[in-house]
């Protein structure tokens, strides 16, 4: 019978199954400082050890500061944050890991940037992490999803996860993306269509010519946002783009295993005629650069659009949501998106902090300067290696000459656990993934955009259509 990629990945990891509840084996466990301390404590209290230390790759990212690194750990002003970062180091020292990139290591960074960069994420793997954006790793034809801390402990202790099979949704995007339209815009356009609950209960497979033509970094951006459509996992079939990206990375299979690995990876696609429980189709030509206007990623329109009016709401519940969003965002219905002025810009996060993102933003910022009304424009590379690469290419200079701040790697203002945050009422063009109330700081107002659009907004002081810039 023709199988979907999801079926292949799931079925090949089933240890045992009873009445539809399966125990699936986990190949890679990514660990960070925020969702792991209670799990390690649980192991300690029960006298348990990790089942397979070589599956664990850890780094500190959520809490780490993006400046003041010359002062080391003591530069972390918040003692609670410092304790959490130190606790991760203590736990890894006590329990072990295949690799650990602690605060300020040259390879430290956002766990979803570091994993693929190191070749720690491979096609065909099951990947988990106590972080919802673990869906990112599905870009490699891996079954990857976020888990809670109890499950982090469960995976550490047993190398397995209790799972029921998800339904499958195929999202097909065909055609050719216009100039200035990126993977981020595709992701937001999909969420605009499905809603943030549209993918609940599903694993989404992204397919179509747009995805086939997308780079691995673009695919990671797309799968990263699958969770914002409600799907725990987003996956993309393996092709030469995948294999070429993986080749030669530190933890990738070496010469003697490479051929066998590639032969297996080439089977990781949905079979011809495989049935999906749902299918969503988009045409590339219909997708414009996207800007969110509200407090959920589904509250999104094209750059030439307006804040929608209440008559367009589909029901009473949505009307209520929109009314609250107008008030929180300080916007009135029918405001042109291009009329919205911004106070801050954030270029970074596990969605958009890789080298291609930084190159694209730098290309817009080059030779220009941020607008006088923009108080702060942050560029936060996804990892130490991304930062080094960008500096080698001179991107840091382009940004700093344009008035942006060039920071150290980490999650930063995507969730504002460290000192990088919005003040109440401040409005931000952000390349991150969530525009929830308070996400980037209490009272802060987030508009999600692509790196190009964020850089263009920084220069103009308000949202502009990146396609209009030459």
């Amino acid at each position, binding site marked *: 019978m023709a199988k979907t990629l999801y079926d292949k990945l799931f079925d090949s990891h089933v240890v045992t199954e009873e009445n539809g509840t399966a*125990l699936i084996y986990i190949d890679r466990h990514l660990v960070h400082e925020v969702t792991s301390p209670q799990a390690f404590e649980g192991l300690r209290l029960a006298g348990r050890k990790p089942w397979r230390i070589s599956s664990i790759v850890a780094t500190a990212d959520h809490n780490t500061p993006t400046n003041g690194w010359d002062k080391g750990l003591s530069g972390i002003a918040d003692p*609670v944050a410092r304790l959490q970062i130190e606790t991760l180091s203590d736990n890894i020292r006590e329990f072990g890991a295949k690799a650990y990139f602690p605060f300020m290591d040259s390879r430290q960074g956002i766990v979803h940037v570091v994993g693929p960069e190191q070749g720690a994420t491979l096609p065909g793997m099951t990947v988990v992490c106590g972080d919802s954006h673990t869906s990112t790793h599905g870009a490699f034809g891996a079954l990857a999803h976020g*888990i*809670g801390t109890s499950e982090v402990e469960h995976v550490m202790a047993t190398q397995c996860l209790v799972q029921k099979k998800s339904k499958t949704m195929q999202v097909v995007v065909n055609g050719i993306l216009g100039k200035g339209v990126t993977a981020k815009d595709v992701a937001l356009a999909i969420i605009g269509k499905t809603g943030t609950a549209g993918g*609940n209960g599903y694993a989404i497979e992204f397919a179509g010519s747009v995805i086939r033509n997308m780079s691995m970094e673009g695919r990671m951006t797309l799968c990263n946002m699958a969770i914002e459509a409600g799907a725990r996992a987003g996956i993309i079939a393996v092709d030469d783009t995948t294999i070429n990206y993986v080749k030669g990375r530190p*933890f990738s299979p070496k010469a003697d295993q490479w051929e066998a690995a590639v032969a297996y990876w080439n089977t990781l696609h949905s079979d011809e005629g495989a049935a999906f429980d749902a299918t969503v189709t988009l045409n590339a030509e219909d997708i414009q650069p996207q800007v969110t206007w509200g407090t959920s990623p589904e509250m999104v329109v094209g750059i030439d659009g307006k804040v929608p009016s209440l008559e367009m709401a589909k029901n009473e519940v949505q009307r209520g949501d929109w009314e609250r969003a107008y008030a929180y965002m300080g916007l009135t219905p029918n405001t042109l998106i291009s009329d919205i002025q911004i106070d801050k810009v954030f270029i970074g996060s596990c969605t958009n902090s890789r080298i291609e993102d930084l190159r694209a933003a730098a290309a817009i910022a080059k030779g220009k300067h941020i607008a006088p009304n923009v108080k702060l424009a942050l560029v936060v590379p996804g990892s130490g290696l991304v930062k080094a690469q960008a500096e080698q290419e001179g991107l840091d200079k382009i940004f700093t000459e344009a008035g942006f701040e060039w920071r150290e790697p980490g999650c930063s203002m995507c969730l504002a656990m460290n000192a990088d945050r919005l003040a109440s009422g401040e409005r931000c063009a952000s390349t991150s993934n*969530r525009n929830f109330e308070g996400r980037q700081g209490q009272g802060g107002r987030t508009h999600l955009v692509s790196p190009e659009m964020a850089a263009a907004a920084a220069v103009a002081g308000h949202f502009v259509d990146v396609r209009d810039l030459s």
Partner: protein
Amino acid sequence: MQAFTQLNGLVAPLDRANVDTDAIIPKQFLKSIKRSGFGPNAFDEWRYLDQGEPGMDNSKRPINPDFVLNQSRYQGASVLLTRENFGCGSSREHAPWALEDYGFKVIIAPSFADIFFNNCFKNGMLPIVLKADVVDGLFNQVSVTEGYKLNIDLSAQTITTPAGEVHPFEVDAFRKHCLLNGLDDIGLTMQQQDKIKAFELKHQQAQPWLFN
């Protein structure tokens, strides 16, 4: 884990869709390395008028009188009634920890975000999916009836209203079994360790590069 069998609990209505885990427990409280004590900061940004930080004496903070859970009639509620896609966003288990610590044992909604839904069961909480029109009806009844309680029976898989109306609900058999008996998942899985070892060996032979 604490078992859950039956509850006759006061219902608090939170009439919003897409309540995300950032709203349930804002990020500044995730710096804790403990799994308890999050209750006073559940819904922190809606619940208080000032900006909350870890270590504050929450009893001295200004309360937002407009936030529904602050109304005196909902004090002591153990059932949260809410709208679709509850718990979307981050996988932080701090969200169910905060709700549980606040006193909620049951959450009723037309739909839940997957990771949050799963996390509830790991903490002795029961998330219940009911059809949107049934949830609408419950919202109406709660708003007009002070002290409105629902009786939730996990074993029978029923919710009974004060008027005696019975709404059946679905729950996965394995999760139900674990909740009813307060079973620790890890302990159960460890009983399968021979199977895990056998799988691992076969898996390693097939894809040795995964075990480098």
